[in-house]
């Protein structure tokens, strides 16, 4: 038997850098993938990006950063896999990274992966993300397991409660991924409107936020997620403080991507 090799076997290899190193400006949209640990987030990430992945570290951190690319509807998407966290409020490296990327990375949309079998625990993070950005699509994952365990989730009801689209998925089999991407596209292009649910704050905290928000808007007109930034400033979050001091927030206000 004769072996016929192409000119360079490297070039046809699916791992050839051309395929998986994502160059600057190669994509039309940036989508962040957020969620609790063990929700099938990585499975979804792999299902969407296949081999077009790049794994490194978040700058200056010991946390793995995975990003990948895919095309959908003629557009190129960059998908950034955020660290799996239960919340965005503590000072752990993972939560800081996820928090900062959602605010300063300004993704065009965020897919929040939720475990349908443990909705309550997962809602915790989802509600916090909704405070940061309105461009959210929920992937309600592990639907097969929920069904098996006799857990029925009213998907439309959840969508109504959260004010963002919810797409049931089974990342392992690829079920629902097409609809998920269509929905993401719809949210990015403005065809689907979202009205994210707000966390009702303690009266004292609400008053403080109400005092702070106009001040922030005066300095940074048109700033998105201003309520969240006010909350973080009240909490004394150093990275938000720094962004205020250096005027980095102004970039967000003008809608310039970092």
């Amino acid at each position: 038997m004769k072996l016929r090799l192409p000119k360079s076997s490297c070039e046809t290899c699916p791992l050839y850098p051309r395929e998986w190193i994502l160059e600057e400006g190669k994509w039309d949209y940036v989508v962040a993938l957020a969620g609790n640990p063990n929700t099938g987030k990585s499975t979804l990430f792999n299902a969407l990006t296949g081999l077009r992945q790049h794994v490194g570290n978040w700058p200056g951190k010991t946390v793995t950063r995975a990003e990948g690319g895919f095309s959908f509807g003629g557009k190129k998407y960059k998908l950034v896999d955020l660290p799996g966290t239960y919340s965005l409020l503590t000072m752990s490296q993972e939560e800081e990274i996820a928090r900062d990327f959602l605010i300063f990375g300004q993704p065009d949309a965020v897919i929040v992966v939720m475990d349908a079998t443990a909705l309550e625990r997962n809602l915790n993070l989802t509600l916090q993300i909704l405070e940061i950005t309105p461009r959210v699509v929920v992937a309600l994952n592990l639907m097969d397991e929920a069904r098996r365990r006799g857990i029925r989730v009213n998907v439309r009801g959840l969508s109504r409660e959260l004010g963002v689209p919810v797409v049931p998925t089974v990342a392992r089999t690829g079920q629902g991924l097409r609809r998920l991407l269509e929905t993401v596209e719809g949210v990015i292009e403005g065809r689907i409107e979202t009205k994210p649910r707000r966390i009702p704050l303690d009266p004292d905290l609400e008053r403080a936020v109400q005092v702070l928000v106009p001040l922030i808007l005066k300095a940074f007109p048109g700033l998105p997620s201003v309520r969240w930034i006010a909350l973080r400033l009240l909490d004394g979050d150093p990275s938000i403080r720094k962004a205020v001091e250096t005027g980095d927030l102004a970039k967000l206000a003008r809608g310039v991507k970092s």
Partner: protein
Amino acid sequence: MKSEIREILETADALRRQLPEDFRDRLVESIYTEAESITQKVVHVEGDPLSWEERIDRIVTHPLWGLPLMVLGLAVIFWITIVGANYPSELLATILFAIEDWGSKLFAALHVPATLSNFLWHGVYRGLAWVVSVMLPPMAIFFPLFTLLEDLGYLPRVAFNMDWLFKKVGAHGKQALTMAMGFGCNAAGVVATRIIESPRERLIAILTNNFVPCNGRWPLLIMLGSLFFASVVPPQYRSLAATGAVLGAVIVGVAFTFLVSWFLSRTMLRGEPSAFTLELPPYRRPSVLRVLYTSFIERTVKILWRAVYMAAPSGGLIWILANVHVGSHSLVQILSSWLDPLGHLIGLDGMILLAYIVAIPANEIVIPTIIMGYTGASTMVELESLEALRHLLVDQQDWTLLTAVSLMLFSVLHNPCSTTILTIWKETGSKKWAAVGTFLPLAVAFATTFLVATIWRLLGGLL
């Protein structure tokens, strides 16, 4: 622009001071309430409304019996370890000491100089054989059990149960997790404190990690427990008494962790404990193969290997000390009799203190060193069983229950091994804290054992 920014920051700081102290907790609470109310509206569970996980969590994190249940679980693990390790330990000792015998005879037949043969077989090899036969069986039982708990997801529940205690002493709830790591290895426990974000609370966790006995100290605790505490009760309760002694030592260690944490957060490391969110992750079915792999390869074999290559040179050193004579006394005798008065004050003796000095690189070799020091080259005692060991320690060296109590206390409280000290230095980047981490426990150990020995003797004198 500048004044606007200053206004924002200053207002935020001023508002924060006006907010109720627990506003972070309240924020978290309102998020939880929202999540709960949404879930109630959109999730419908057929059959059992409470998942089995929630049922278990309700029991193991119960405010009243969560902690006792945890202690009971720990006791069961110790008991299984003590009972289970006995037989393989004796079997291993028999085999390994038979090899020592056979090896030295072979060397004699080959006309290897007696000094060299003695040095290698009765010095270096005996140290190794001791470490292997005493340490391997308990580790091979204890670590898989512990890894199993880890894999199940029980450890975050431990942190949850103990959080309020840590808060009380001004430390961080996650310190419970770093302590759990310390049970395996204190150096690993010190590294694990990275999960604590606040530098002040992290330092407390680093400086007190040593008070949980690492695996290098388990064999000593288990052996003393079986040897001294088991022998004062009727035979059928022996393993229970031994378990109780080991558990007692651990509880003393944990109590000192809280005591010293409290002391530190009121003196050198003043401050308030910071709030954090601790989510109880779902229970996982442990993967048996991974548990076996992690506990055998990652823990047992690696730690045993470390003990072996630390014990070999120490075994050699002790043999030399025991066989080099100045006048009519060996160096071991001279050094240990020099340390004797100090040792006696704290319920120990000079040989034990000498062993602790030799064992600074690795706590694993304290017992082998003591035995080698006692038996030396002159009196060849075949230590094939615990009974023989008891004979050596009690009948020949006059160890009492006080010696055992003091030694267990000293073992739990004394300075960390050199690896851990180095790790503290690296993690804190400060020689000062490495020194505090070394001498603070040492001082605590001396003070405690001195008190115990003094009171014990006073009471003994009165009775």
